[in-house]
Each structure stands twice: as C-alpha cells, then as structure tokens.
C-alpha cells in the first residue's frame, strides 16, 4: 500500500496528483512534494491499468497479438500495430507489396496527425484554455471518419496484418484525404492564432520544464520530447522503414529544451505529416495490398527487434522466438515510459501549474506507460 504522508519532516507538503485528476489524462498517480507551490520532487506511481500485455502476448499467435498493441498507446494504435507487423515480417522475411507499404505510411501519418491534434487540444486544456479542445476534435473527427471508412474502426483499427494491410483502401479514400488536407491547412493557422501566439500561453510555456540534450538522451526520451531538446532521434529518418526513405520531409528539432520547444516541434510535425500525405496520396502504386502468407505463422528461432516512430517517440518490439506459433517472450519498448521517467528531473523547481504544462508537452498516454 502507498503510505499516506501529509507533510515531510522538513515541513514540505505532500500531495497526490491523480489517479483521478483532470490533468493526468487517465490514471497516472503522482506524489508531489511541495514547498509552498514549488515542486521539490515528483514520484510517479504506475500500474493502475497494468494489464500485462507482454504476458498476454506470450499465449497469442503472431496474427493475434497485433491487435493487443492497439490498446497500449491508443492514440497511435495504428503505428504500434505497424511496429509489430514489421517485427513479424522481419522474422518471417515476408516482402510487403509496395501498395501495402504506401497505405501503411499514409495511415501512420494520419494517425500521427490525429494524435497530435488531440494532444494540442488537451495541452491547451491543461493550461486552462477550454475552447481549443473542441476545435481539435473537429479536425480529428475528419480523420476518424476516413479511418472508419477504410479500416472499419475509429480508434483501435487493427488494420495491420503481417504481410500487408487487412483490406484495400476505400474508393473514396483519396478524395476524402485531399479534402481533409485542404480543410486542415486552413485550420492549423487558426491553431496558431488561438493558442501559439497567445501571450499568456507563451509565458506559460517558455523556459518551463527545461530538459538538456544530454539528460534527454540519458533518460531515454524519444520523439518530440527529445527533439525539443535538439536530439535527433526520428526513427523515420535514422532507420527508415517502409517508404520513408524515399520521401521528402524534415526531421523537426528545436533547441530550446523547454515546453515551448516541444510544443513547436509537435506543431511543425503536423505540417510535415501533411506534406508526407500530400506526397503519397497521388502516388499509391497499384497491386496487391497483402502478401501471400501462410495461415499459421511460425517465426524461426531467434530474436527480432523492430522500431517505429509513433506520435510519442520510439516504439520498439522485441520478439524472442523459440520457433513456435507463439512468441516465447515479447517486450514492448514504449516511448511514454521513458519519457515519464524524465518528469521528475524536468519538474523540480517549477510550480504546480508548470507541472501540468510539462505533463502536457510530454504527451503522456497512460496505457502506453503501464502496458
């Protein structure tokens, strides 16, 4: 049991932020030691929604385990599935047809956009602006509709199968995505108008939650959290998978290391994702959407590691196979877990209001941390 502590011996206040709190976005439990309003220590208590997905996967076949990973980082469920599919394909040495590759990347980027939009709304809500949340959901709804039409579900799509994707694109897909891009190009400027340029928002973000590049690497931070500190860690650029190697896009980094840098990285990433989608949407190759695979997949004995860039950072899948139909051991390296470990380091010395802003820019998804 967690012992209840009111104040420390030094007379510092100890408060529990969560597991039910408006700004923890789920069941994160932080025990904060405060001196006045200044944070002395942040201690995360995890496990409120630990489902032991790694253990579950040990009894699921290589086709079945993919869907479980949608339930980890549910905002980039498609990218998680992608990582798993890549790992199985690496083990089986399945060649994915070019059409499937492009479809996968398109869906990845749409998922990333949807995830960043939700983050933007929630981030603004954390610092007290309630309106952006609804504006963000309007755009996200458009993406979800596209997803629903092609994948059959809105959040936990399970569209990925080893060797390709589950179904071909919906005939309306291209038209709708182009419509969405046109629509979103105008709305992303509104985002800047409503939140980014706002003087109150800027002063809440600038210079807050500083994370140096060395600490970011040492804490294992990835994704926009590390890129905000100037660490180049985009898996799409460093270790290109699928068609990312042939695409023109920039790895967005900022040097500030503060909340505003992380915020700007995500905002720029949305624009980059848009440009990736624009490059691909007219160039989807014809052909099969799924490679021919056996009904029962058996990975050869060995170890396979694959990584993808989710909206939150590097997602790794580590499969140890004994040659059977189920993995012997599977490990998911989730980005949120490592990013959270830097929270204490980042939040010390700032105020409670800043902690909320820092958590917002870390973009924590609790099931991703707890697994």
């Amino acid at each position, binding site marked *: 049991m967690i012992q209840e502590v009111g104040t420390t011996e030094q007379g510092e206040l100890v408060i529990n932020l969560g597991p039910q709190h408006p700004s923890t976005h789920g069941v994160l439990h932080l025990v904060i030691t405060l001196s006045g309003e200044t944070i002395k220590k942040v201690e995360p208590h995890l496990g409120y929604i630990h489902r032991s997905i790694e253990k579950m996967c040990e009894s699921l076949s290589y086709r079945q385990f993919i869907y479980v990973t949608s339930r980890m980082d549910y905002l980039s469920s498609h990218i998680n599935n992608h990582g798993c599919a890549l790992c199985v394909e690496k083990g089986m040495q399945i060649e994915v047809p070019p059409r499937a590759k492009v479809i996968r990347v398109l869906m990845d980027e749409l998922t990333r956009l949807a995830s960043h939009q939700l983050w933007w709304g929630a981030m603004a809500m954390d610092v*007290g602006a309630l*309106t952006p949340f609804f*504006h963000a959901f309007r755009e996200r709804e458009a993406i979800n509709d596209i997803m629903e039409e092609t994948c059959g579900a809105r959040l936990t799509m399970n569209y990925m199968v080893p060797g390709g994707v589950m179904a071909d694109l919906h005939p309306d897909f291209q038209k709708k995505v182009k419509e969405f891009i046109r629509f979103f190009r105008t709305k992303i400027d509104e985002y800047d108008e*409503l939140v980014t340029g706002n003087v109150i928002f800027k002063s809440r973000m600038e210079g807050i939650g500083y994370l140096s590049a060395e600490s970011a690497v040492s804490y294992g931070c990835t994704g926009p959290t590390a890129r905000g500190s100037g660490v180049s860690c985009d898996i799409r650029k460093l270790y290109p998978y699928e068609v990312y190697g042939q695409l023109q896009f920039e790895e967005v980094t900022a040097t500030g290391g503060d909340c505003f840098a992380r915020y700007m990285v995500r905002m720029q990433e949305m624009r980059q994702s848009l440009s990736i989608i624009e490059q691909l949407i007219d160039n989807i190759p014809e052909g099969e959407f799924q490679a021919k695979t056996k009904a029962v997949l058996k990975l050869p004995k060995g170890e396979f590691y694959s990584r993808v860039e989710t909206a939150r950072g590097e997602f790794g899948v580590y499969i140890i196979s004994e040659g059977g139909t189920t993995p012997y051991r599977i490990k998911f390296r989730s980005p949120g877990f490592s990013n959270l470990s830097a929270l204490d380091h980042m939040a010390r010395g700032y105020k409670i*209001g800043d902690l909320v802003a820092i958590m917002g820019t870390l973009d924590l998804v609790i099931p991703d941390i707890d697994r």
Partner: protein
Amino acid sequence: MLSIENITHSIDAWLNSMFHPTVVLLVESLIVGICAISLFAVLGLVLVLMERKVSAYMQIRLGPNRVGPGGTLQTVADTLKLAMKEGLTPDGADKFLFNLAPFVVIIVAMLILAPVAFAKGTQIWDLNIGVLYISAVSSLSVIGILMAGWASNNKYSLLGAMRSGAQIVSYELSAGISVISIVVLTGSLRIQDIIASQQDGWWLFKGHIPALLSFVIFIIAVTAETNRAPFDLAEAESELTAGFHTEYSGMKFALFFLAEYVNIFIVCAIAATLYLGGWMPLHIGHWTGFNQVMDYIPSSLWFMGKTFFLIFVIMWFRWTFPRLRIDQLLNLEWKYLLPISMVNLLLMTLIAIEGWHF
C-alpha cells in the same frame, strides 16, 4: 409613463397612507429582501445558461438543448439536481467554518447589491459613499474563500484559497484606483451623482484615453477579483481539481457557484455604472433630438443591456484564454496594471483639474 420608479413610488405612497412609518420601513425592507433573493435566483439561472450557451457557440457546439425549449430550462434542472444532492462534510473538516463559508460568500455578494442603481430611481440604498462601500465590501469575499479553503482540510483547497487570497488582495488595488479615477472626474462617491454626471455622455467617451485605459484595467481587475478565467487560479481545475470548493457538494457548492455569477453581475453593473452611465441612455452633448429619442428606451433596459454586454465580454475572455500561472498573475498586477493605473490616475487628475474632459 410606466416605469419601475413610478411603481416603487406608488407602492411607497400607498403603504405610507395605510400604516405607521416604522411598519412601512419593515414591510419595505421585507419586499426589498424578497426582490433581492429572487433576483439572485433568476440571475443564477440566466447567467449559468448564458455561460453555457456562449461557451458552446465558441466551441462550435450547440450547448444545452434538451430540457425545455432550446435548453432554456437546463439550469432549472441543474438546480434541482444540486438541491437533491447530499451535502457532504469531510471528516477532518472544521465543521462550523466549513458550513459557514458558502453563506459568507453569498452574503457578501448580496451586500454589494445595495447601492447598485438598476434603473432611474431604483436603488436599494443610495448612500453617499456608494463607491467606497462597494470596494470595501467586495474585498470581504476573500474571507469566505479562505474560510472554505482552510476549513476543508484538503491541500488542494488550501492552495486554492491561498492563491485566491493573494490574487484578490492585489487586484483590489488596481480596481480601486480605476474607480478613483472616475471619482476624480465626478467629484462624488455617490452612485446617483456619478450617473447624473454622465447626463451629456458616458465617461468612457468623455474622459479621453485615460478613461478608456482605466476601464480596461477595471475589467481585467474585476475578472481577477471574481476568480474568472484567465485568472481562475483559485479553482484551476487542471491543477487543483476545483481549488477552494473541492470538498463542497450539493447546495453548498451551488451557493459558491451562485455567488460567482452574482459577483460577475455586480462588478459588471458597477463597471457599467462608472464608465457607461448605468441606466443613463446614450446621450451625446447637445444633440437634444438624439437624446430624446434615446430616452424613449427604458432606463432599466439600458442598464441591463450594458451589464450583460460586459458579462459577455468577461465570458468571452474565459472561453478564449489559457490560465495564467500564480507568479505571472501577480507580475501582471504589480508590474503592469498597478503602475499603468497610477500614471493613469495622475493624468486623469490633470484632466479633471484643467477641465479638459467634455
């Protein structure tokens, strides 16, 4: 002409003709009390609905639309729900203070109602230090909030209350100075005198840029004083769950809620009185014809229109801006608002002495 003034006068005359003056005073106090309480109830219902509709339209959604025509009865349903809820008192709370706090807050809100002029000749108490009375009483509400925060025996509540204390005490200053700059122009603290001085135009237009500045500062300061976003640090739901009223439920919570909206109404009414002429219709200098046309619109409508416009502006703030941090909030007051309003007051005094205003 049928106006509120005539009605009140005829009731007064009728009562005086029937009863002894002491009885008349008692009966009139009773009537005023009932009117004030029902005004509270109506204001609560209307303003909460207004807030929800304003926020909904700004957030591209419809807002309440199921209870009653267009959702107009939504707040009635909410009130019923709150009335039926159990009023919990936490185990470790200081029971007396905990239960007293919401009443302190609501009584303070009621007290400020006294000198507000709702229409021509309609005022509960036209005391000669009206403006001073308002600034004195309005700073009492912090006591209720501190009481609630401390008595709840909850750390979030305590933090919220401490923030609120620091905030209200500092913003009291620039609000007071803004009020004084109008007092300088009129030379009187009496509300009726201030309104009467705006016979030929509202101070907002007559007082040059200093009046405009002090109006803006006053609006910012009262937004902070009523704990409204972007200055809602005492509640700050993403940081302190609900701040000082975290532990309140049922009717006691409803009283806090009601007091917040009544406070908004009152500060907006005061802003309207000081800068926009209260019930005084829009008059421009010597344009007698224009002024007479304006007089045809009842004074109570003028008053309500101005007040509700200001309330809308304050709601507009809330649904647009992020929240400030506590140190930034105090910075804004001590580094920006207070120096500016002091310089502004000097300019205003100069204008008043030299008679440069229109």
